[in-house]
């Protein structure tokens, strides 16, 4: 038996509320334990005063929850100095806690990006009818760069640092989110989503030049392509390079680009389809357009399944015999709440085939099992001679 004196700290006001207990999931424990073996990583707690705080590691986001304890936990340490006690016989209570913090993995909250970047679409000299471009149409860079600089200085820029500060997301997830949303990081860290037309133009040019220069698809020279595109269309190298990163990988050492052929062909297809939202295009006509746009070498990749979740196919009501027509219908613009999404889908069409509806559910469920669960909950299955149809389970009013 050894006896010790349990004491209060000599400076309670400075010590109370300076300790917290944080429950560690296994992967975070590992990160702490492996400190020093690799580059030191840092965590941070993020959130505006109105939001629930989250904890971000380098590439993951966790929701922070406070769990209240009915017991109290004393944080006991050795005395800080001789006046506080004798380190051999005294131990000191630093703080008394009544809660611990729990971490639950959560998805990064990047939805805010859309609103923050509204009206900041990046376009170089191309008009884009899809977007509200009043103040954003920029002139040719070389001709009136002076004016452009003044214009940009007037308007408050929204930068990567701002996004990092405001969004509850880890750095890794933020970068990935920017990539997926096709948002450019311009000099000075300014964030601007690329316009649809400029993106399509760059991708078509990339495909053309890769063929024209006979570059290998898995190791195309970044310098050659960006220079060629800058010379022919006056599109900044930086912009082209970022687009190349979205659609493939750029090797760090050699400046070689491994292109994602399917990704590019798909994006070009969506680009063409985008103008046929309310005015459907016959399937054959669309495929011809698409194949022309991607060029001879890649036309074999262009096939409709690549675009699943982005179009609706139905027989044309005005021609006889009916020919299949396509209309642009992107899953990404549907509501993310399952109930609202099913409501939207059944407003668009009263009944769906199983394989027709599933592409539009892909992005709101993690696997097929969860998709079937959603179908069971929000749709009614009817089997007839043509197979299984799904119809609305109930009429939602609002």
């Amino acid at each position, binding site marked *: *038996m*050894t*006896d*010790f*004196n*349990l*004491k*209060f*700290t*000599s*400076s*309670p006001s*400075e010590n109370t*509320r*300076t*300790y*917290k*207990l*944080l*429950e*560690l*999931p296994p992967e975070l*424990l590992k*990160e*702490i334990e492996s*400190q*020093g073996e690799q580059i*030191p990583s*840092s*965590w*941070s*707690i*993020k959130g*505006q*005063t109105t939001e629930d705080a989250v*904890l971000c590691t380098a590439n993951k986001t966790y929701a922070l929850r406070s769990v209240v304890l*009915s*017991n*109290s*936990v*004393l*944080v*006991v*340490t*050795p005395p*800080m*100095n*001789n*006046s*506080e006690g004798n*380190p*051999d*016989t005294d*131990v000191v*209570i630093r703080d*008394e806690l*009544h809660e*611990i913090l729990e971490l639950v993995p959560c998805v990064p909250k990047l939805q805010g990006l859309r609103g923050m970047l509204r009206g900041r679409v990046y376009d170089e000299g191309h008009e884009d009818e899809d977007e509200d471009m009043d103040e954003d149409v920029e002139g040719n860079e070389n001709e009136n760069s002076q004016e452009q600089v003044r214009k940009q200085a007037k308007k408050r820029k929204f930068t990567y640092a701002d996004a*990092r*500060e405001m969004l509850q997301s880890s750095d890794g997830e933020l970068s990935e989110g920017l990539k997926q949303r096709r948002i450019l990081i311009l000099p000075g860290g300014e964030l601007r989503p690329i316009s649809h037309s400029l993106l399509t133009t760059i991708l078509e040019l990339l495909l053309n030049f890769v063929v024209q220069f006979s570059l290998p698809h898995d190791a195309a020279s970044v310098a050659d392509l960006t220079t060629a595109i800058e010379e022919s269309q006056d599109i900044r190298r930086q912009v082209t390079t970022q687009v190349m990163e979205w659609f493939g990988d750029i090797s760090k050492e050699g400046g070689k680009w491994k292109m994602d052929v399917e990704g590019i062909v798909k994006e070009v297809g969506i680009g063409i389809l985008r103008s046929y939202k309310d005015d459907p295009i016959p399937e054959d006509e669309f495929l011809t357009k698409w194949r022309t746009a991607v060029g001879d070498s890649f036309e074999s990749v262009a096939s409709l399944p690549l675009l699943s979740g982005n179009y609706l196919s139905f027989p044309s009501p005005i021609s006889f015999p009916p020919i299949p027509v396509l209309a642009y219908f992107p899953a990404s613009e549907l509501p993310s709440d399952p109930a609202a999404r099913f409501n939207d889908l059944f407003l668009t069409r009263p009944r769906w085939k199983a394989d027709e509806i599933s592409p539009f559910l892909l992005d709101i469920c993690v696997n097929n099992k969860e998709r079937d669960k959603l179908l069971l909950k929000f749709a009614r299955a009817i089997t007839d001679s043509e197979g299984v149809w799904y119809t609305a389970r109930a009429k939602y009013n609002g």
Partner: protein
Amino acid sequence: MIIPIHLPTPGSSSSNTLPPQFAQFGTDEVVLIELQGSLEVEGDKANQRVGKLSIDSTTKKSTLLIGHNLLEGKLVNLPKPLAVLHRNSSKYSSEQLENMDEDVEMDSKTKSEQKGWDVATVVRRKMVFAKRPMPMVGHAAPGAVVSSVEKAN
């Protein structure tokens, strides 16, 4: 708003360590003591003695004598390890600096450059005093000036 949390780097631990008997109940820097109810103090509690904490290293049992109340404690392994976070505001550090030893001062100076919270250590065990206190008659602990109020349940 971003509040940084600094992970411990090897070798950055403070020079002060708990007596070796405590290590098995937590770490050599921090021990968590769980009580049913809480310590209630009237008046200034700064530097006051709470009670006598006895540790038996072989049986891994501990007792806490507060006034006439004797508590029995045991070692409990935490289901999930806990990181002990410590706030590191510059205000706190500068005030602490004045009454600190030379070596501790250096340590705290370097820390105060980075605001936020530090992961002081990771604990996997705690000392739990779960039972109701036993009255100790005629065994008054000398110097016990604080009284403890235990929740009756």
